[in-house]
Structure formats: C-alpha cells, structure tokens
C-alpha cells in the first residue's frame, strides 16, 4: 500500500517535536477528518534554520509531515513556498490515491507557518 520511502519516514520520522520559541507556526486539518498537522519554524535572515512537526494522522500524514521538514530545512522562504503537496508526495515516491486529498497536507501546513512568520514580522 505504501512505498518504502513512506514507510521509512513513518517509522523514523525526522524532526518530530516542537520549537519552543518558534517564530512561525502553521496548523491544518481537523480531528473530524482524522488529520491534524502542526509545523513549527525557526526563521533567520529569511532562511528556515530549524523546523519541527507534530501530527495526528495516518501513515501518509506522518510521512508527508516528516518529508516536508526535510525538504525545507535550510531553504529560503521563497524556495519553501514553492514546495507543493504534490512535490511532497512525489518525494515519497507517491501515495495511495485515496490518501492524496485527506492526508497530503504537509505543504499547506508549511505555507501557513510561513504566513504566520510573515504576519508576525509585519505585525
């Protein structure tokens, strides 16, 4: 059902946890549909220097969360905003079709966290 890459990220999720003084936090999903993802960012000089996640969800939800954190670490915000849910799924060698909509939200959570950072900056 899941690719080896999905299973690897599911079993050994990268960057689990919270960043205490994160300057950007994004959350998507809700418990009704079964997926909640929260992404914490530490941004310095427009660059993501640290990222962590917490996820309530299925194998796909956990793997996409883990994968997105790996993909963005060290990237500028502009580069990070170019990452799509589709790109995350591809980086995992694909997801089962029924998981594409409900669990493939990690990039959305990332974008929300960046928005949060920018609005705080503007704030």
């Amino acid at each position, binding site marked *: 059902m899941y690719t080896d890459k999905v299973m690897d990220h599911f079993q050994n999720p990268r960057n689990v946890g919270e960043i205490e003084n994160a300057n950007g936090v994004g*959350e998507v999903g809700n418990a009704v549909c079964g997926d909640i993802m929260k992404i914490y960012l530490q941004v310095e000089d427009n660059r993501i220097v640290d990222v962590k996640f917490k996820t309530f969800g299925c194998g796909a939800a956990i793997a996409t969360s883990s994968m997105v954190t790996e993909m963005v670490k060290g990237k500028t915000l502009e580069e990070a905003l170019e990452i799509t849910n589709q790109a995350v799924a591809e980086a995992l060698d694909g997801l089962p079709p029924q998981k594409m909509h409900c669990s493939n939200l990690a990039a959305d959570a990332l974008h929300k966290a960046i928005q949060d950072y920018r609005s705080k900056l503007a704030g």
Partner: protein
Amino acid sequence: MKRIYLDHAATTPVDPEVLEAMLPYYVESFGNPSSIHSFGRETRKALDQARATVAKEIGAAEPSEIIFTGSGSESDNMAIKGVALSYREKGDHIITSAIEHHAVFDTCKFLEKQGFKVTYLPVNGEGLVNPADLKQALTDKTILVTIMHANNEVGTIQPIAEIAKILKERKILFHTDAVQTTGSIPVDVHELGVDLLSLAAHKFYGPKGVGVLYARKGIRLTPVIHGGAQERNRRAGTENIAGIVGLAKALELANQKLPETSKSLTELRDYLIDNVLQKFEYVRLNGHRTRRLPGNANFSFEFIEGESLLLNLDLKGIAASSGSACTSGSLEPSHVLLGMGICHEIAHGSLRLTLGKSTTKEEIDYVLEVLPEIVNKLRAMSPLYNN
C-alpha cells in the same frame, strides 16, 4: 519474525480438517448437482447432506429452510430485498439499527431510494439497541426488522430473543445478521426466535465465498440472483459444492468445540482488556464490558489515529484492525463508533483486536509488551497530546 493474527473478525484461516472435507469436490467429484447422471447425483448427495447438517446446527425445522449463497453480504441483501419486494403490498416500512454492517446498512439505503421507509434505531453508549425504542418505531406498515446478532466492530450482543418476542406478537418478519456470532456463541434460530438469519463460512474457519440464508418455511423471497431453479428457485447459479461442504463441516466443528473455545477466549479477552485499561491513560473500551463476543476487544486510544497504530503493530508482526476512516477507504470513521455516540477524534483512534482459537496467552503478552512503546511514540508525535 513471528506473526500474530488478531483479526479473526475480519476472516479466519480454513481449518485443515475443513479443507480435507472439501478436496474431493474439485477434481474427482465435480458433477453439477442439477444433472441427473451419476456425476450429478454424487454432488447432489453431498449438497443434501450439507444442507441437513447446517439445518441441524442452527436448529432449523427443515433442510429446505437453508439457502446457500455466495457470502454473508449476499445473505443480508437477499433477506432484506427479498422480503421487501415480496411483501411490498403489505407495507413499506423497515426497521434496523444504526450500527449494522454495511451489507445491511447499504441495502436499506438502496431500498429507501426505491421508495421504502427505513427507521435506524439508535444504540446506547455500549452499542445496545433498546427494545422499547423498537416497539415505539413499529407501525402497521412495518414488514421487516433487521438487527444484527452481534456487532463486528465492538462485539456487543443484541437482545435478539427479547426483540423477537415483540415481533412475533405483531407477526412482523425478523432477520438477524449472525455473521459474527455463528460458531462463536450459540446460534439457534428457534431460541433466537428469528425468521431469517445470515451467516458466512469464512468467519468460523470455513472457506470464503460461501454463506447461508436461513429463511423460515413459508416466507416469500424475491430472488436477488434470478435464473436457474437452484435452491428451490430462490438463488440461481451452479452450486459451489466444495464451498458448501466446507461450510457445513466448519460449522459442525465450530459448534462442537464452542463451549470450550468460548470459555478460553473469554478469559484471554478479559486478561487483555483488564491489562490495557490498567496500563494506559486516556484509553477506553468500546462496546459492552460483558455482553460481548468472546474474542472481541475494541479500544480507543486518545490523541492517536488508528491507521498509524495498525501500521506500527504490523511492523511488530501483529495483525489488527481499526474503525479508522483511513483503513476503510472512506472519509468518515466507523459509523458504528459514531452511532454509539463516540466523538470523531476518539473514534479515529480505535483498535480492534479479535482473538481466535489459535490465540495464546504468550501472544497477548507480546501485544501488551509492544503496545505501550507504540502508543507513547505516537502520542509524543501528536499535536493533541499535551503531557
């Protein structure tokens, strides 16, 4: 890695003794039982014997009350659609419960589109239907009540005999889906007082692809599968002799060993339930504590999602199941847990462990050993858990 199978409610392996009984009916004894020649008479005899065995095992008055079908789902469809279409001139109202298997639930939904009216009785927090609710729901247009004997997810056993008494007085037909109970707890159509009953071989160590509908003599049933005159014109199609022989054998064996299996499974199940409830915080048992199937344990672990729990257990060699939406391919979590008033969040974190005759205490101990680690890891990852 040793694998531990704790998903006996989903399906069971075929008992080697059952397979042995089936084997003569593939290559050697293969005639069509409708044929009048010796090849056909041979399998006709096997078919008649199997029918007599099943009738005896479930307490039917006559072998002709046994209709062989291709699955539990087909039996459910046939009972409900068969009665609905045959008794439409008497009434158009059907009563069922909110926690039926999809084979009943979706059939009722289909009949609603065909103009029938269906009442879905609520259940309490433990999954029990209240006979008083049923009484209230009856109208003079009610032609059929269909309530499952025991639920496949939470294992709650319904008060079938009590409901039957109410319906007998009113002469309303009563069907029960006994797919989960047959071979696990006593199933006797006479004692239950039902008019129609469904069962499926693969839940009691028989083959997949064969089921039974019991229909009390005199009940009219519009076929679901039209065609040849098999099964007294009630279910067309060349009979699956090997499967039918296997079903009968499996039922015989299961009922023979039922008292002892049931006792030892109940003990193991209680050991599992007691330990889980003791070992974990934020866990609840779904279903009734005692009125439940001998092999069924169903928990909700708060703050975690069922599929990730299952995948982790699978990585440890443990096969289990969940009412989580993600494992069923639908977006909603189990209508059974929601129907019992359990909120979405908690329904998502459900874990069903169903024990079978081969389950050992060592296996349960292994589950109890690896479960905390998994639950802790997933909770540590969960944004809902703030400990």
